[in-house]
């Protein structure tokens, strides 16, 4: 009998999908040798960012590389995405006052100046929305064909007096999402013309630090875990939170806010909105006694109008995410590779 390869010899799209393959890559290649941060959060925690203890506070640091095709899409562009992605990763660690961001741009030879100006106008606007600024950067230009137009990498820093990880859940806790899921990913697919039909879908890309600040103020220490469901969608975020916390999460599928257009597109294409990327949503794990208060605080913010309690943590089957469909129950799968429409 032949031995099966346990490790992929080549990197493929699945390693960037935010699911199990990406986590395995980080564990096997990126994380070894970089130990834990004493009294804080390091790379081995594979959280949204790092938290370095400084006095009685923590410096939260996160970095995010952004590539998206097309670079301009309904509801945003790569610039807005680059600012929001990093601001949101800071916020998911409990750091809602970003001190500053850095931004490195890698451009392809021939990139139009007017598009660059448009992207930077969008970066400025997003920074203003998030209450932060860009303080340093870097520019590289690559030969034509060596890069698909533009890649942006942003790093963010912020101080916080309380770090919220993605592993604080225990049985009985409630899981909240701050709004409709699947908007960004399906808007991008539609813009690429990959849906074979037109939609009016708009990306949800937005800085969440203001929204999260309100939730933290309302829930206090009862907010025990946070994550932004970007690549891999709500499913990946829930799997990570369940796995790291050692609980199972039972999701009430009918409570998950999903726009009619997203639901319809998903039905047609065989794509589960729970697996589709979001860029302006957060998942919060909270103690049961503060859940309603946190939802009220979220709904009071323009970005949290559709916030809802969508699930509950249980002790059985730790690490799994179980969907209660109303008809029965299923295990929620994780996205691997790009989302593929089904034939049957």
């Amino acid at each position, binding site marked *: *009998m*032949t031995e*099966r*390869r346990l490790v992929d010899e*080549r*990197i*493929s*799209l699945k390693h960037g999908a935010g699911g199990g393959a990406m986590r395995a890559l980080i564990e096997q290649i990126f994380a070894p040798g970089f130990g834990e941060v004493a009294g804080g959060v390091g790379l081995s925690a594979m959280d949204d960012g790092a938290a370095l203890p400084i006095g009685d506070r923590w410096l939260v640091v996160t970095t995010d590389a952004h590539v998206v095709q097309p670079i301009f899409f309904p509801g945003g562009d790569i610039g807005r995405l680059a600012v929001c992605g990093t601001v949101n990763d800071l916020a998911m660690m409990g750091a809602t006052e970003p001190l500053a961001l850095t931004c490195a741009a890698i451009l392809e030879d021939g990139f139009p100046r007017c598009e660059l100006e448009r992207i930077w106008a969008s970066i400025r606007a997003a920074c203003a929305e998030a209450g932060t600024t860009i303080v340093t950067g870097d520019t590289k230009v690559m030969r034509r064909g060596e890069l698909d137009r533009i890649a942006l990498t942003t790093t963010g820093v912020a101080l916080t007096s309380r770090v919220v990880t993605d592993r604080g859940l225990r049985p009985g806790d409630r899981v909240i999402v701050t709004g*409709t899921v699947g908007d960004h990913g399906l808007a991008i697919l539609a813009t690429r013309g990959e849906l*074979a039909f037109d939609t009016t879908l708009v990306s949800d890309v937005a800085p969440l630090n203001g929204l999260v600040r309100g939730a933290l103020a309302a829930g206090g220490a009862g907010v025990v875990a946070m994550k932004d469901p970007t690549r891999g969608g709500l499913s990946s975020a829930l799997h990570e939170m369940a796995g790291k916390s050692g609980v*199972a999460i*039972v999701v*009430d*599928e*009918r*409570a998950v*806010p*999903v*726009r*009619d257009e997203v*639901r319809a597109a998903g039905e047609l*294409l*065989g794509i*589960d909105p729970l697996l589709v990327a979001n860029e302006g949503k957060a998942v919060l794990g909270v103690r049961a006694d503060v859940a309603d208060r946190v939802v009220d605080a979220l709904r009071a913010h323009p970005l949290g109008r*559709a916030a809802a309690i969508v699930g*509950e943590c*249980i002790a*059985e*089957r730790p690490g799994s995410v*179980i*969907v*209660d*469909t*109303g*008809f*029965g*129950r*299923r*295990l929620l*799968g994780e996205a691997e*590779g790009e989302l*593929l*429409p*089904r*034939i*049957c």
Partner: protein
Amino acid sequence: MASPGGRLEFRDVARGAALTEALAARVTSLGRAPVSVMHVCGSHEQAIAKFGLRAAFPPELRVIMGPGCPVCVTDVPEVDEAVALARQGVRVATYGDMLRVPGTAGSLADERGRGARIDVVYGAAQAVELARGGEPVVFFASGFETTAVATAAVLLADPPASFSVLSAHKYIPPVMEIVAEMPGSAIEGFLAAGHAATITGWGVFERFVERHRLPVVVAGFEPLDILAGLVRLVEVIASGEPRVDNAFPRCVTREGNPAAQAALWRVFELQGGRWRGIAHVPNGNLRLRDEFAAWDARRRYAIDVAALWDHAPAALVAQCQCGDIMAGIASPHDCALFGRDCTPDAPVGACMVSAEGTCKIWHQYGGHPDLREIRRRA
């Protein structure tokens, strides 16, 4: 926000609960266990998975995934042909879920990682559009008689010379015979696919019922359709009078769609072929008729499948137990490959490829394919 239960007529949770109860009562009144029935459709599979219906079925009822997912039963050599073409530099268009189906030396997704040009399309017409630029495009076409009609339609609409079809299309009725005739088969009835029957008509199953004395119920794809179809199937089993029953009358007639049938048989003819992990199925494959040879990739290209085999792992397929598992006479634990050489990441047989394949479910659920005990505490 709209909830699926509140808005859509066929997703009424309360009616679902009533049907679930009715199903349990009908199965209990049979007075024996297990009662094994088979569905033969990928869309039934997907709906059962999506709505978590397995956790709602009574424990005495075994709903076995039959050879009904065209992607899953696409045989290794067929995938190899597509991989070989891609490796030879030909642009290949296919359906999204075909991308990850493993052949002898990997899948089309693997090939794309190595730089091959693979396009995911939503339908045959989109593949034709790709070929309109003049560059040769091979459409690796899978699916049963439903999807094959779409392939037939584009071939009848004068496609460009740059377009060709690598047919992995399959025809369901013959494989039902195979399953029914498997020695020791425990299958007591079939749930047939509503959309395929829309084209073939439910009359296509009459001869099968006559020959095998096994009931067939045609069912749709909403959760209520499936539950109602199963209730009907258990009722027919209880009656002891096997017949074809149409539980999808809003779409399916006895005669089906004659125009679609005509298109299908003008373009395709039946041919025997292997279905992954199951058997050689006489008349189970759909191949292009001679008059469409110009668009038949197998006749247009010298497909060098053997070139893939130099470094290929030994064939595990011979040890695959999918056939017996589908017949309800073996469980995944009876298979030496299960969980070791055959996993969802590297599946050998159809039962591990498919989302609702028995092996995939067992693997995913840690050998306990049961979420009934998990209750949400409100």
